[in-house]
């Protein structure tokens, strides 16, 4: 059985559909799983049908969950100078972080909103396929020393925006336990929900002012990317922003529906 057949059968048995993930990356992840478990594709399929925990572990191992606080500092500085200034002047501002992983991107955005005095008007929602990372996101607690460079990212962004803010304004640091945890006023803001972009039919209940989907679609093939962008497009207000990862661009097919604004896109108003 090759990995394509495995993915088809995996979908039949688990409802998780990875068939349109990018070949090289998914085949490598699967190869690693086969090596780590010393099981064949057939054996893995048999076990996921009867063992929920094992199934979750396979989903966890297939997906890539790496993330950072203020990943790509330049992006946040440029958002501050551009789209953040154009957010609605009253009412609720809705942010959707797709593939939010352990929530650091969500908290990064909320820190910016707090600096701009907009925190109270934010509706911030993070979604991800993987329940494990969402639990971490809800808890808002992360390893500290391993992630020292979060501080560098934080400082670079605050400096670039001219904000006078300290890391400790937003995170409680416990040197002994080697943890940092988002402060309660930050922690209480976002909602995190399990959602599978590929298989959930009605994936989002609100219209949005800003969508972040960074470093998620690099794992998808073009066909799946187009399908996802169409769905997102239908959830965006006119002129709302779509933020992709630093090395990502829309396919030429989707590009016509958006205006490119340097590091992000905005939805062209419908005629």
């Amino acid at each position: 059985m090759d990995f394509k057949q495995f993915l088809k059968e995996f979908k039949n048995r688990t409802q998780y559909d990875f068939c349109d993930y990018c070949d090289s990356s998914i085949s490598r992840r699967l190869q690693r799983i086969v090596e780590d478990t010393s099981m064949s594709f057939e054996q893995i399929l048999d076990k996921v049908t009867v063992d929920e925990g094992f199934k979750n572990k396979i989903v966890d191992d297939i997906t890539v969950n790496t993330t950072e606080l203020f990943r790509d500092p330049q992006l946040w500085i440029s958002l501050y100078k551009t789209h953040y200034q154009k957010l609605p002047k009253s009412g609720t501002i809705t942010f959707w972080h797709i593939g939010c992983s352990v929530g650091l991107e969500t908290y990064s955005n909320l820190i910016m909103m707090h600096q701009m005095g907009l925190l109270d008007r934010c509706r911030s929602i993070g979604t991800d396929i993987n329940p494990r990372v969402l639990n971490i996101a809800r808890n808002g607690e992360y390893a500290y020393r391993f992630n020292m460079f979060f501080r560098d990212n934080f400082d670079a962004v605050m400096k670039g925006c001219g904000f006078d803010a300290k890391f400790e304004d937003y995170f409680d640091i416990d040197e002994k336990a080697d943890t940092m945890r988002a402060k309660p006023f930050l922690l209480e803001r976002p909602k995190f929900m399990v959602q599978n972009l590929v298989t959930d039919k009605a994936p989002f209940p609100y219209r949005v002012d800003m969508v972040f989907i960074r470093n998620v679609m690099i794992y998808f093939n073009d066909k799946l990317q187009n399908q996802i962008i169409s769905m997102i497009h239908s959830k965006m207000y006119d002129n709302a922003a779509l933020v992709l990862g630093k090395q990502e661009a829309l396919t030429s097919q989707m590009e016509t529906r958006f205006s490119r604004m340097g590091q992000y896109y905005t939805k062209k108003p419908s005629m």
Partner: protein
Amino acid sequence: MSNYKAVVIGGSAGSFALVLKMLSKLRPDFGLPIIICMHRLKHIRSGLAENLAMKSSMKVVEPMDKERIEAGKIYLAPANYHMFIEFDGTISLSTEEMSLQCRPAIDYTLSSAAIAYREKMVGIILTGANEDGAKGLKDVADKKGFTIVQDPATAEVPTMPRAALKLVKPDMVLSPEGILDFLNNLQ
């Protein structure tokens, strides 16, 4: 030009100055894509491509995900992403876990290139301070690609070429000048 479709180069400590020098002396009409995976220090995330572009007559890009590989361009693995060569002649990027504390990992670029290009590629390992790249070069050799390792005696930090030599018997062990000559004479 030649039977080859691409040249893939990996290096770490000491390789940046070397690559700059080599690219500045490369024939301007060099007809193959050059794919470079170099480790960089965490805080130096940009500037590499700009520097290379200044020294080289070829166009230097830090590719976007799924960008098509074209002859005569230099592709530099972007900071903090692994870079893979796909079967259909495109590049794909990934943020997955580091490999041997490296992202980008040379092993990933070389191994994926070996699958995509088989015998139609040249793989080169330069100076560097860890063992990344050795496994990837072995994959290139296994698929009958042409392999070159920088002579450790000429390397600023010999760990990486030594590690490669432990795993692979390369087609050539060359000094930087030798590598440059080889590339300029690729027909």
